[in-house]
């Protein structure tokens, strides 16, 4: 469980996050939405321990985030950036194997258990066939799957993702979201920053709408994605409809 209390973060004089307070229960699938510059990515980085807030507390399983040693935190939380640039020529297998780093001993040698974790992660992401390919020769959709597979091999209970679908076509967007949904069903807590409101409405169990560093609304997609709320925050005329098959709110522009 993640508890955030009075979280404040600022760069010099510009406040990015202003006294945020919320909770995320275990095995929720939470989407953080809001316009550009609202502070979504900053919030996610604070939750991942990548940025240190100036005020307020973040508790993970009742313990202060900053009190976790980095290695222990890595076994609990994994962070997946929007895009991962690979400059060196590694095989997919080796990149996924990197997810086992927090579990390696002093001599940093992988055991049978690590190998099994990698095989399982490759299976879940359905990229077994890419295992021996170079990471440099993959499409961006495949690369994103590799990075998620690495996080699966990390076996942390909390997954933080920063707009994992932004650069992908609709097929890969759905593939990634369905995979995350499956991981969520298996018990992982998922928190993702996402721009695509329709995609968010289809998959998340709860949305947190942020504007200028403050929480404007939170609740089920049904509650958060309302015409006047979206229009106010994004300053844009929208029409809300119901997805004919899934009975979930969807947004049309104009």
């Amino acid at each position, binding site marked *: 469980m993640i508890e955030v209390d009075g979280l404040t973060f600022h760069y010099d004089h510009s406040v990015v996050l202003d006294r945020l307070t919320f909770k995320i229960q275990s095995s929720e699938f939470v989407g953080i939405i809001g316009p550009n510059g609202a502070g979504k990515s900053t919030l996610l*980085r604070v939750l*991942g*321990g*990548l940025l240190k807030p100036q005020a307020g507390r973040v508790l993970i399983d009742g313990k202060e985030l900053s009190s976790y040693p*980095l*290695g*222990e*935190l*890595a*076994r609990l*939380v*994994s*962070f*997946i*950036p929007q895009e*991962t*640039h*690979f*400059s*060196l*020529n*590694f095989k997919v297998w*080796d*990149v996924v194997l*990197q*997810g086992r*780093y*927090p579990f*390696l001993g*002093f*001599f*940093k040698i992988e055991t049978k258990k690590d190998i099994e974790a990698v095989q399982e992660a490759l299976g879940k992401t359905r990229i077994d066939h890419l295992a021996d390919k170079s990471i440099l020769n993959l499409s961006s959709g495949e690369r994103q799957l590799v*990075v998620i597979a*690495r996080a699966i091999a*990390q076996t942390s209970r909390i997954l933080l993702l920063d707009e994992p679908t932004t650069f992908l076509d609709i097929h890969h967007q759905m593939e990634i979201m369905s995979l995350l949904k499956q991981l969520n069903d298996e018990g992982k807590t998922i928190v993702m920053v996402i721009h695509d409101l329709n995609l968010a409405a289809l998959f998340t169990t709860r949305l947190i709408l942020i504007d200028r560093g403050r929480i404007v609304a939170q609740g089920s997609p049904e509650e958060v994605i309302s015409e006047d709320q979206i229009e106010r925050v994004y300053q844009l005329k929208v029409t809300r409809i119901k997805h004919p098959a899934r009975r979930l709110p969807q947004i049309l522009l104009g």
Partner: protein
Amino acid sequence: MRAKVIVPLLGILSLIYIFLLPNPPSPVILKIRIFRLLLAIYTGVTLSVFGLFLQGALNNPLVEPYTLGIASGAALGVSIGILVGSALSINILAFLGAVTAATLVFFLARLSGRLLREGLILAGIIISFFASGVVFLLLVLNGRELHEIIYLLMGYLGRVPTRSSYLHLSLSSLIAGVSLFYIFFTTKALDIIATGYESAHSLGINVNRLLTRGFIIISLNVGLLVTQVGVIGFVGLIVPHLARLLVGDHHRPAFYASMFIGIGFILIADLLSRSLTTIELPVGVITSIFGAPFFIYLMIRR
């Protein structure tokens, strides 16, 4: 399997180095050459492995140990010491200069408010230029007394060994050995850093701590190295590239490869420096003049 080829090859190279070129030695010369061989091995291994570490930890293929301002600091330390008429030996002056410059680079990097990895490169370049500027100013103003600095700036393996230089070499080799051990255990972390600092952090790697420790270790070692052989550029830059080309991008195999290639590279460069012309050239001149076009070739090939 590669080791089976490389080790005998280096052995043969060493024998040529000691006995053959430029001509067979007398017993006294033999002693000098054996010392020179040891010095070359020490230089090749440390510069190459530290180059590999820095390129990995800073995620930048263009850095090498001398990028961090350490060498220029050493040169400045020596020139000031000579001009002031200090009683300290050149070795100690160079070491003090190197360590002072490194400390300055480190705190400048921290002060800049930037991320440590960007700050280090930037501060290293700034301090390098500044220190070199002052050295050249002193050279121009006091040309005669400072010919020793020119040797230091160019890198030279051929000093006649004394009892104290043996001691110096064994002590610094010991320190280098321990340091290499540390670097070896960071190789897996370096592989992960290559996929981004945020990913590395999320996998439990404290990048700032890694950089800080690495920087202290490298400053100390290169400070010791500079006092013995001066500035030998390009080795720490090219050898890691060659190693990755040969054994792939993973840092652990590249670590072994860098050590062996580093030794071979220095030995060949020093052989050339002794046999190309009738006078002996500083080995740093050879590594730079032959290194630059070679690096261009590698760049284009990739």
